[in-house]
């Protein structure tokens, strides 16, 4: 069991990364190793997993059988996120600000303390703001000798990552992992039975994390069911609001479930740290002074909640878009795998009932809604507009 096993269905990328890690762990850092990498690939293809595996391989302390053995102290601490020379930026809010990047860049100038490389891993580099990207660029342009930057982004399109950053990175393109590979990893690592694993892999659209979620979480399954019922249930104008409301409420509930407990614990921790609940002279003034810090925390929590709600809604919309795509594919009898093979009855009905033009219009309404959400349109307004377009056809 080495670190590359977690990278599902990406043989080509693993070969490149392995060669680089071999060069990086031996002392002649030849052409195979470089100081900045950009991992691109569709959501769920395992960009951050691949980046983390690569980081582990670089810090491997037992590279006799090839770097990334998976059982030495170096590999273990990197994978657990506790290695002293691996710094990760995992944005939970809507964007990565310039302040975070400046701190990170200052750290990048240090020499590695215990490992061989100082590794800086930025998940979701597409969330870098312009200022943050420029701050990072300065370090990537003139890198300290033993520092490696690992950036992850959905694609190397300029919308996702600044061209200036991209041109200084070596690209690692990940593909959508094939369904068999996903089913295999679910069965092997998570111990799921073969049928469940195969079903989850077939409906996940190549998203490993989503496949695992669907296979293990009954709530996720029922949410998916509710979303996929929507196209056939949208009959009258009244359904538009009822179903849109259901969709948004489900996303809100999912997001609150993820963040509410953490929010309360974080706030309490900060209040205690700032002397909340104290008595005596000066306690009131101290409490007033602490308000700024608490406001800051609340702001960050709000940004995180907004993001998890948007992400939840986006997952639902991707499922919905998959349905119309399937209907179009089956209307044209295209020989492609369906996104939702378990809904083929509904898909066939939809393909027979609506013309390809109208299916395409619906598909576009769903995609427009995704885009609108990204542009900060209020979820309810965007989803209701979409539902009304879906109902009109």
């Amino acid at each position: 069991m080495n670190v590359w096993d977690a990278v599902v269905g990406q043989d080509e990328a693993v070969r490149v990364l392995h060669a680089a890690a071999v060069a990086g762990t031996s002392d002649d850092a030849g052409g195979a190793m470089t100081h900045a990498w950009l991992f691109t690939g569709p959501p769920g293809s395992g960009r951050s997993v691949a980046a983390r595996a690569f980081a582990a391989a670089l810090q491997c302390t037992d590279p006799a059988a090839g770097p990334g053995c998976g059982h030495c102290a170096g590999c273990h601490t990197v994978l657990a996120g506790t290695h002293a020379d691996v710094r990760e930026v995992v944005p939970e809010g809507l964007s990565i600000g310039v302040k975070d990047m400046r701190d990170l860049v200052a750290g990048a100038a240090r020499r590695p303390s215990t490992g061989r490389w100082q590794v800086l891993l930025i998940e979701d580099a597409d969330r870098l703001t312009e200022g943050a990207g420029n701050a990072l660029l300065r370090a990537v342009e003139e890198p300290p000798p033993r520092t490696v930057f690992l950036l992850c982004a959905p694609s190397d399109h300029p919308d996702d990552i600044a061209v200036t950053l991209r041109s200084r990175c070596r690209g690692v393109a990940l593909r959508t992992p094939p369904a068999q590979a996903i089913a295999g990893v679910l069965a092997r690592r998570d111990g799921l039975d073969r049928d469940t694993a195969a079903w989850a892999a077939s409906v996940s659209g190549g998203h490993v994390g989503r496949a695992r979620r669907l296979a293990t979480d009954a709530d996720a399954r029922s949410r998916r069911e509710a979303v996929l019922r929507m196209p056939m249930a949208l009959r009258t104008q009244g359904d538009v609001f009822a179903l849109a409301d259901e969709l948004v409420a489900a996303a809100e509930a999912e997001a609150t479930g993820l963040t509410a407990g953490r929010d309360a614990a974080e706030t309490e921790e900060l209040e205690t740290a700032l002397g909340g609940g104290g008595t005596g002279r000066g306690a009131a003034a101290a409490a007033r002074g602490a308000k700024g810090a608490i406001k800051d925390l609340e702001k960050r929590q709000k940004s995180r909640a907004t993001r998890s709600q948007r992400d939840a809604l986006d997952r639902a919309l991707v499922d919905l878009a998959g349905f119309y795509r399937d209907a179009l594919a089956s209307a044209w009898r295209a020989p492609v795998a369906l996104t939702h093979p378990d809904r083929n009855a509904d898909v066939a009905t939809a393909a027979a009932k609506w013309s390809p033009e109208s299916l395409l219009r619906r598909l576009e309404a769903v995609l427009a809604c995704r885009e609108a959400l990204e542009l900060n349109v209020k979820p309810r307004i965007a989803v209701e507009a979409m539902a009304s377009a879906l109902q009109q056809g």
Partner: protein
Amino acid sequence: MSAAAASPPVRPQPLCLVLGDEDLLVERAVQAVVDSARAADPETEVRTLRATDLAAGELAELVSPSLFAEGRVIVLHAAHEAGKDTAEAILDYARTPAEGIVLVVVHAGGNRGKALADGLRKADAAVTECPRITRFEDRAAFVREEVRGSGRRITADAVTALLDAVGSDLRELAAAAGQLAGDTTGTLDEAAVRRYHRGRAEVTGFSVAEKVMAGDRAGALETLRWALQLGVPHVLVADALADAVRTVARVSASGGGDPYRLAGQLGMPPWKVKKATAQSRGWQADGLASAMQVVAGVNADVKGVAADGGYALERAVLALCSARRR
């Protein structure tokens, strides 16, 4: 003031509670207490502080009678924010108020720190209620009262014109009313108001949306211009438009019926349902569907997609008005 001086000075009650969060009225109530204490004893010392700044024991120090028995007024602001200990200390004192000392407790009147307010009421404090003025009629009554206070009268038209032009801030209204009363003679009428005030002080996104839903294209554009001129954020106008469209769409999709039953079903107040029912008469299902696309689009536009949010709003208003015709 001259009337107060002629009659024998009335000492204010030793405990006063000013309830409410309408700043101007609160300030006036406190000032009235201070004035009457000063009228009784010109040497009265006034101490003003926030209840949250009181340290333990400080209140006892403040309310203990001084050697020469001169009067003292203590004004405690933001009493609703007071901690438990401070609140208890205030209530303790309220049971046995000291001679010659007037304690004025200013409380926002909400649920926060309610026990303190209730306790003071029970201790026979003189209560002055200053609730926030939100309704149009109350504001009009306030203006009439202000004008009457300076010994003049004002017509109903003039009140409306003044509220339109000055806005809803009580301080500004009081100042404007006082100024008008000073600058003119006779009953204040609309012409007198128009002479000194013009324009609109407050236009909300909702008034734009109302005109749009009624299909009044010229009126909607004019209101929108006022709103933009006054600096109403584009986002608020866009939200108001979206809210109006989806309310009408939801109400008309529900098929009508008893507004109270619908209100429960749709989770909105009955007056909103009634208004939307009236507005929905000019709208067809197709028009509403395309209106929903328009408001979703303009919502993105005002959040940075369009180069000019004002233009995007104008275009949306025009698109909505033509969607209504369909």
